[in-house]
């Protein structure tokens, strides 16, 4: 069974298919594991739609499944597959100097009691975000 780590999400996907170094997900699994959905205008998440290159569409979509590896590379995301454990990591995409990060990327993390906190829940207040480690 494939484990898919897509940005901050981690999912086990029993129905995933691997073919020639590519990971194919059906549309239900795709939405659950990544938030992306196949629509007539392309592959969409929220208001963002990424058109599928028409001259290469068969390498992206086939038989109601999406080639997540191909799509991730199209978005500039790093893709790593550990074949021994069938784990796929789709990392945060590279970002050119010309598109600076001006808005704080959101995240959700637990505290010691397991209670989850989401950065954007604190909008309306200034946030001093600081990291540390026990090591």
């Amino acid at each position, binding site marked *: 069974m494939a484990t898919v780590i897509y940005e901050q999400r981690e999912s086990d996907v029993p129905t995933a298919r691997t073919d020639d170094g590519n990971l194919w997900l059906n549309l239900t699994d795709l939405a659950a594991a990544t938030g992306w959905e196949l629509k007539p205008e392309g592959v969409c998440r929220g208001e963002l739609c990424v058109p599928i290159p028409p001259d290469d569409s068969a390498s992206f979509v086939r038989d109601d499944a999406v080639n997540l590896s191909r799509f991730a590379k199209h978005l500039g995301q790093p893709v790593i597959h550990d074949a021994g454990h069938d784990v796929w990591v789709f990392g945060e995409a590279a970002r050119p*100097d010309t598109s600076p990060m001006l808005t704080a990327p959101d995240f959700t993390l637990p505290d010691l009691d397991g209670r989850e906190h989401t950065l954007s829940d604190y909008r309306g207040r200034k946030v001093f975000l600081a990291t540390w480690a026990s090591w």
Partner: protein
Amino acid sequence: MVITVAMDTAGADAARPWIEAAKPAHPSLIDQCHTVATLYNMVNVPSAVWIDEEGRIVRPTEPAGTSEAWRIMDRTSFTMPPETLSAIGARRRAYTTAIHDWVANGNSSVHALAPADVARRAPGVSAEEALAYANFRMAVYLHCHGETAAAAPYFAEAKRLRPESWNFRRQAWSLEDPMKAGGQEFWAAVDELGDDRYYPEIEMAGLPDDPPPAKQ
């Protein structure tokens, strides 16, 4: 408000003694996968980002009021002479004063940067750097599932792609042996820095100078 994030792949139990001793009133979060470091392109601790009420970054990732002076620490007793402690304290106080200035004056504070300055100080992430984080993420997943040997090559690749990441190096060392992240390997790597900095310089008005200490 303050939000602290512990970069600890060993999980809540690794961070717990410090958090319980500090009894913070602010959210004190545990980040096993170093998600915040990945999102904000951080390579060391402590790193900080200032975020305004609208969710805009007004100071991108920078060391949180650090000093280089600790590098002269006695490596067996972990003690430092009073003048070193005083230099570290002066930097920390100046940085804290700047935070208070921002809290009081908002984006008119001299320390809150305009978008063009934020952009200049926070360059993009190259394909190689993004790949380093992905390798680290794979290593963390495998490690957390008991696959220590399988994780090792991914930790190694992350460190190779991003040699400036002390987060990668020290986290990987600490998973091999909790004492290793501050042990001989660590000090040897610090010595290799020579006249180079351990933390990048913080560009902030009012911070005392902080040259790397002369070689011991």
